[in-house]
């Protein structure tokens, strides 16, 4: 799991980084809210953030508000890490948008368990996002086929959304997952291949004249 540690105190930052690396995580550590904000705005930023509350400059709470203002379909999972431990602090932190809370001094087992809880949420989010994209793609196809299809009255070509006229079979192949196979109906067989049609049906195709 890739984790961003934001902690101004060097000894605590090193402790966190070492413990998390021992647990098999890939850790990026920064010492201020401003540095963290630069990392977080990168498209490949770690999705789980361990964030110290009280820091000089941009503090953890304000950074959390900024992060929530840019959260898209795949929100960050934020664990606030601080010496503050009274109920009103915890409520304030959670109300601001943190997902979890660890008080200092932290213990590796608790840290590991909370990181794992965060990982489960992030993985579930990723799965839901992937399903949502698949569903949207399917809905886009269904919408295309449910709309009005402009079709030529004579040659039966279909006009697509880019104003190109396509054969009906090409249109279906492009806009659906259906596969098209080609065959000949009896009526067309009689028109285009009268000999074969006659053999198949045993019918005479000679035209009757008025004198008959």
């Amino acid at each position, binding site marked *: 799991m890739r984790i961003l540690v934001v902690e*101004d105190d060097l*000894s605590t930052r*090193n402790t966190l980084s070492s413990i998390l690396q021992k647990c098999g995580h890939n850790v990026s550590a920064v010492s201020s809210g401003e540095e963290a904000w630069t990392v977080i705005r990168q498209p490949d930023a770690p999705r789980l953030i361990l964030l110290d509350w009280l820091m000089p400059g941009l503090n953890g709470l304000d950074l959390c508000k900024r992060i929530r203002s840019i959260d898209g379909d795949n929100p960050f999972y934020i664990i606030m890490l601080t010496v503050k431990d009274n109920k009103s602090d915890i409520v304030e932190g959670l109300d601001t948008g943190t997902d979890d809370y660890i008080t200092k*001094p*932290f213990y*590796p087992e608790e840290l590991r368990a909370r990181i794992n809880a965060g990982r489960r949420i992030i993985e579930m989010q990723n799965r839901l996002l992937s399903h949502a994209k698949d569903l949207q793609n399917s809905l886009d196809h269904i919408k295309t086929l449910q709309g009005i299809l402009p079709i030529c009255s004579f040659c039966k070509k279909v006009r697509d959304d880019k104003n190109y006229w396509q054969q009906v079979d090409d249109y279906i192949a492009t806009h659906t997952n259906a596969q098209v196979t080609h065959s000949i109906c009896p009526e067309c067989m009689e028109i285009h291949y009268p000999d074969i049609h006659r053999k198949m049906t045993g019918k005479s195709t000679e035209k009757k004249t008025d004198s008959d």
Partner: protein
Amino acid sequence: MSLSVCDRSIFDPDDLMERMMGDQALARSIAEIFLSNIPDRINMLKESLYKKNTNGAELQAHSINGSASNMAAIKFQKVASRIEKACRVNDLTTAVSLLTELEERFMEVEKEIRQAIL
């Protein structure tokens, strides 16, 4: 390491080792950072208090408090916490009066840490 000689009311090496997942090298490394950084932090705290900047002093005291709790420096951490709380309510007199005790507690815990794990 000679953990048995330690005064656990000042420094709790067992607590530290539990939080370092039993990694003695990591504990030594963190202790060295702690001992080299704290004097600067105390000076910055003093500077903020002398300038009557309680917000800055609160941040400094908070940082010392967090660092001390990470290091299991029990008595030192308690004094830092008292200074942080005093700064939060703008009680400059109490915060300044605790500076001497903070420095004394640091010297005390430094001795314990050096004896126990360095």
